[in-house]
Structures are given as C-alpha cells and as structure tokens.
C-alpha cells in the first residue's frame, strides 16, 4: 500500500511538472528585468491554462522560447529583459469529463505577426492584455479563436497575481502599480477568476 502511495506522489510531481513553472515569483529581478502579465479566459476552451510560452526575438538568443508562470488564467513572469518578444502558444491538459480525467493535451498557437511586444525599461510592470477563447466549431469540428476582453482589467488581474508575489521584491512594485491605477480611476468590477 505504501508503495502505491509513493507512486501517486511521484505521479503528482510528474503531472505538476507538465503544467509549467511555479506560480510564485522566485527571482529578484527588479533592477535587471520587468514584470509582464496578461490573462486568458479558458471557459470555452477544452482545457485549462497550464502553460503559456513566449519567444525572445530581440536580443536574439539560441534557445529563445520560455514559459510564463500561470495561475487561474493569469500568465506572468518577472525576468523580462529590455527587448522584443512574441507570445507563441498556450494550452493545457483537457478538462475532466465527470469524474474521468482527460489524457488529451491542447496547444493553441498565436499568429506570428500579431503577438509582439517591446520592453524598454527595467523595474516596470507591463500588461499585455486580457483575452478569452471563443469556440466557433461544433460537435464534429472544433474551432477556436481568441479575442480581447475588458475584464479582468489591469487592476483586477494584479490583485489576483499579488498573493503569488508575497515576499518577493516585485510585491511592493505591484502594490504601487495597483495604487497608481486606482488613483487614475480604474475600478474593480468585482470580477473573480474561474
């Protein structure tokens, strides 16, 4: 019995490993990097958001594709150096059917020419937008698209991510950005993550 329990722990670790990197901010990069974040509503998707990849275009590097951290649909990372980047793809493990877990993994690619952003200064918090997946297919043919949405807005999303920055040097900068957005009149609509 103990052997099986050990197997489950190992399987859990392996499965967690498939789901991307830790949601908690781990690096002290305030002086060298930027915090970049966004959101995808996966309500209409056949999977949850388990990973989100981006590519460093400038300055060029050999292995240029990296993972965002993901948490409740939010994607973010704290060590972006000044440069140019593209959102590449995202996906996750299929949603369970009743009590049966899915063995399918889904990846959605983003169009190359439309998903770029530039980072100019270190120590900044950059919002790349909130999006939702839409389903345009039917039972026989699955067809998905992504469209921009108003909520969560930048303020609402930072509040979701903030607990994962606890104790990290980025925490006060995220709090500062929340205060700045509030002072600018951005409001919290009461949006909550799925």
């Amino acid at each position: 019995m103990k052997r099986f329990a050990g197997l489950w722990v190992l399987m859990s670790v392996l499965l967690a490993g498939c789901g991307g990197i830790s949601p908690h901010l781990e690096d002290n990069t305030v002086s060298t990097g930027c915090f970049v974040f966004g959101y995808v509503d996966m309500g209409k998707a056949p999977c949850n958001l388990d990973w989100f990849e981006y590519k460093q275009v400038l300055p060029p590097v050999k292995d240029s594709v990296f993972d965002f951290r993901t948490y409740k649909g939010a994607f973010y990372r704290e060590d972006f150096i000044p440069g140019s980047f593209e959102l590449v793809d995202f996906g996750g493990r299929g949603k369970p059917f009743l009590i049966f877990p899915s063995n399918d993994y889904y990846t959605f690619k983003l169009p190359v020419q439309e998903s770029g952003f530039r980072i100019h200064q270190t120590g900044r918090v950059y919002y790349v937008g909130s999006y939702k997946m839409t389903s345009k297919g039917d039972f026989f043919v699955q067809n998905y698209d992504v469209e921009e949405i108003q909520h969560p807005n930048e303020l609402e999303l930072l509040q979701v991510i903030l607990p994962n920055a606890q104790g990290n040097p980025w925490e006060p900068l995220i709090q500062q950005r929340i205060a700045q957005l509030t002072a600018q009149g951005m409001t919290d609509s009461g949006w909550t993550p799925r």
Partner: protein
Amino acid sequence: MRKLLGFFGALAMGALLSSCMAAGRPLITNMGDVGPGETVVVGKVKVTPPLAEDEQTLNAIGSEGYKNRLFLLTGDQWRDLQTPLSGDDYKGHIEAPLGHTFFALSDAQSFYILGGTLILGVSNQWSQEDIYFPGGYKAVIRPGDRAVYIGTIHYYRNEFFQITQVVIEDDYAEAEALFSGRFGGQGPLRKSLLVPVETPSP
C-alpha cells in the same frame, strides 16, 4: 510508436501542403515552353532583413522545398485576401525564390498581385505557421508580349515579421542579362514595373 505516428503525421502534412494549393504559374527555363497567347513574367522578391538560416522550421516530409520561397498570390481581378487563405487563393500563384529572379509562364494578360505568403513553419503535428505579405499591384501585360519585366518587390520587415514598407525596385539591367543568358536573346524583355492599385479605403 510515437515516432511512427510522427512519421505518418509528417508525411500527411507534406502531402496536404502540396495538395491544398491550386496550381501556380510554372517557372520555366526554355522559351520553347511559351505558347501562343502566353508570356514570361520576370521579376524578383526580396525581404530585408533576409531570412536567417534557421528561421523556417520545415519538418514535414516534402516541406523542405518551401525554404526561402515566397508565394505571390495573383488574380485577374483585384480583391482583398482573407486569412487564413484557402487553396483557391493560390490559383495562378508565382513561387518566387527569395532574392533570385524568377521566370514564370503566364497568360498574356494583365493580373494583380493580391498578396504573398511564406511558410515559416510546418510540423509533423498538423500545424503550419504562415507569414502574410501585402499586395496591391497590377502587372500590366500587353497582347503580343513575349516577356515582361515587372520589377523587384522589396519587403522590409521588423523583428515581429510585420511588413513596414514595400518598395518596387527597378533591377532591369540585371534581369535582362539573366534573361538573355537563359533564353539566348529570344526577347525582347519589355519593362513594365508593377503599378500600385487604387484600393477602396475600408
């Protein structure tokens, strides 16, 4: 098993790529291939900065032929292309080798450059990544033209492969020398640079 599935996926993707595209204007090497009512369209496509050696990832079987190739999409009438493209959008395309002069067999009638596309990546998992290029030019062919030079379409891009500028350049002297060398002076090669199309604003 996974490798085997990957192999069949790559094979199927390669077959799918070649079967989906409507027929293009054949590239020719012999003026004897030019029949009555036909002409040779001579031109070039350049991209600056040029493609890096490893920028295209063509992993499906048969897809390596798309390396450094840009498909110029043409039509008898002007129209806006909608992406993703359909197989019919490729009807009458010119498969232009980037940076090299092409000699394409064409009906001796004017046509429009509707846009262009380049296959940036094909994997063995049924996925393909395309880059789109703007069109908006008319190639003016006169009845009786045996060979027409339409110019160099020079696309400038930024780091996201967004096209920031298009310039029609005149490299006639170079094209004429290549034409004479290849076809033994079976000209003349008439210069008729691409003309911008007056497109209705959206």
